[in-house]
């Protein structure tokens, strides 16, 4: 296992097993005793243990993986899945919000408009990208790019990983609510296929502002929710320490949300999470995108819009 990662709490047992294997190997080398069989058995057991662990993660554990500092960011995916990515900066109104990045590109030869929220991996980067929390101007840039894609018949792909839209004075002054709302409304009018993928955190209206799509996917260890479990806990339980309970109650995983038809599919991550193998994660992402575009491209604009409308129209559970 790659030791450059700081292990999450629940990863520690894995590290212990792997350390043990390492020890046996060293012992074998040092002493010449044949420990092949023991090592092989232990390795198998380790994999089984991991598979079981990762198939049964609690929402809180998934939350931790989704926020892992080494998890691939939007720009990592751009690097791994696109050819000729040409970034289109700015809202044309005074701001180039770095928390949302977008541009035209080809994915497996398919032209797309690719837009996503960007997080940093270092403190410096996090400040630059505002921890992946867009300002209203970021949503307006995205809207400009949506219109561009619409005009030139490019499928839109959004990759979402945000703890939410930024809650700040200036954000309120320049209309965080309006910016998100206008995106929701305008995405409904677009004539091209839209594919949204929650790659990490899909938190509240800030995530939804890029996700009124024909197809919505989630990476295996991402989450999607109306409010962060921490925020929910501090309001409903009046204690942020109840975040675990809130995470459970909020039903934030791909499997949960597929039940309510909010999400169309889960994209497999490498064992241990996306941060263990960026390339493989990107490959799965890319294949899902291309498969979806192929499926949607045969439909005309009217159908695409009507299907998108009906998709969201049906969401909700109530008594009548």
């Amino acid at each position, binding site marked *: 296992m790659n030791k450059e990662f700081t292990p999450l709490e629940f990863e520690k047992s894995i590290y212990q097993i792997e350390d043990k294997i390492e020890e046996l190997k060293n012992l074998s080398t040092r002493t010449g005793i044949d420990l092949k069989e023991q090592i092989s058995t232990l390795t198998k057991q380790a994999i089984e243990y991991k598979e079981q662990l990762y198939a049964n993660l609690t929402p809180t554990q998934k939350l931790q993986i989704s926020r892992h500092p080494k998890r691939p960011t939007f720009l990592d995916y751009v690097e791994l899945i696109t050819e000729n990515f040409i970034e289109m900066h700015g809202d044309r109104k005074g701001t180039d919000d770095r928390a949302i990045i977008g541009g035209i590109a080809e994915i497996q030869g398919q032209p797309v408009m690719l837009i996503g929220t960007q997080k940093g991996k270092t403190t410096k980067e996090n400040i630059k990208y505002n921890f992946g929390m867009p300002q209203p101007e970021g949503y307006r840039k995205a809207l400009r790019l949506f219109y561009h894609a619409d005009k030139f018949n490019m499928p839109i792909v959004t990759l979402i990983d945000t703890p*939410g*839209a*930024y*809650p*700040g*004075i200036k*954000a*309120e*002054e*320049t*209309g*965080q*609510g*309006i910016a*998100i*709302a*206008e995106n*929701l*409304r*305008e995405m*409904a*009018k677009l004539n091209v296929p839209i594919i949204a993928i929650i790659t990490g955190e899909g938190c*509240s*209206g800030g995530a*939804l*502002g890029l*996700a*009124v799509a024909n197809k919505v996917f989630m990476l295996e260890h991402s989450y*999607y*929710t*109306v*409010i*962060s479990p921490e*925020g*929910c806990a*501090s*309001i*409903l*339980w*009046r204690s942020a320490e109840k975040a675990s*309970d*809130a995470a459970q*109650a*909020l*039903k*934030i995983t791909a499997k949960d*949300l597929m039940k*309510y038809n*909010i999400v169309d599919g889960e994209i497999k991550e490498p064992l241990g999470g996306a941060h263990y193998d960026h390339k493989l994660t990107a490959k799965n992402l890319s294949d899902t995108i291309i498969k979806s575009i192929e499926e949607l491209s045969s439909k005309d604009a009217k159908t695409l819009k009507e299907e*998108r*409308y009906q998709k*969201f*129209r049906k*969401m*909700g*559970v*109530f*008594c*009548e």
Partner: protein
Amino acid sequence: MSLKDWFANRKKRRLETALVDSRVCDDELHKLWVKCYNCNSSLISKDLDKNLLVCPNCDYHFRINARTRIEQLLDKTSFEEINAKISPADPLDFVDTENYKNRQKKAKKKTGLNDAVITGFGEIDGQKLALAVMDFEYMGGSMGSVVGEKVTRLIEAAIEKKLPILAITSSGGARMQESALSLMQMAKTSCAVAKANEEKILYMTLLTEPTFGGVTASFGTIGDIIIAEQGARIGFAGRRVIEQTIRQKLPSDFQTAEYLMKYGQVDMISHRKELKNTISNIIKIHAKSTKHQKKSKK
């Protein structure tokens, strides 16, 4: 997250609510004096009612519930409610310090409503319109599946009937107990507004005390015309969340209707007494120009 504020501010608010509610429910108390939340002057309850629940002293606009709003705004007896029976489920079996089902029961008992919005058709100065009115008393006016569904159905019905739409908001944000399902109501209602846009149906919103979170970030702020009621507090994130983020106090007029107009986010601010007249004029002018359109198409 914006609900946080409203919960935090509960005590103050409860007091106010109690006073206002009491006047509505109880004949004995109806004769009582009410204290203005803003200027502290003592007001005769009936006078306050007659004054549309606006303090005659300082112009403070008391928060009002959906039924009262409809009475104040529409021509008498013109309102016909639709989809009144739609009521909330508990799809997530949500339990926090109390379970969601219980919260629903309490809210219903308190308000007589099935959920936080009333929808229907009515008239203003004889002009028909479709109307959605949120009620903050029902679980902080939070938007769950029922609010989303009723607002969406109303918009769809208005498109069908070619009527102008007025959505009156008062909400702390999304209904957390429905999690992503409640989040999706933002998309659902906004998609319905998109349809209204494409059919060139006039869609107006009136933002009233308070409008926050998921409602601000969906059908509340995408009106062709957005009116804010005088003094109403309107925002995306709650005051406390922002204060925690930026670690400093906010100016006292932050997120007021007046503040929002200064920052270009609402078309106009209206005194409660002017509301009916303003909305009536807006509908009239748009009806006239649309008529021209029909003519010129012939």
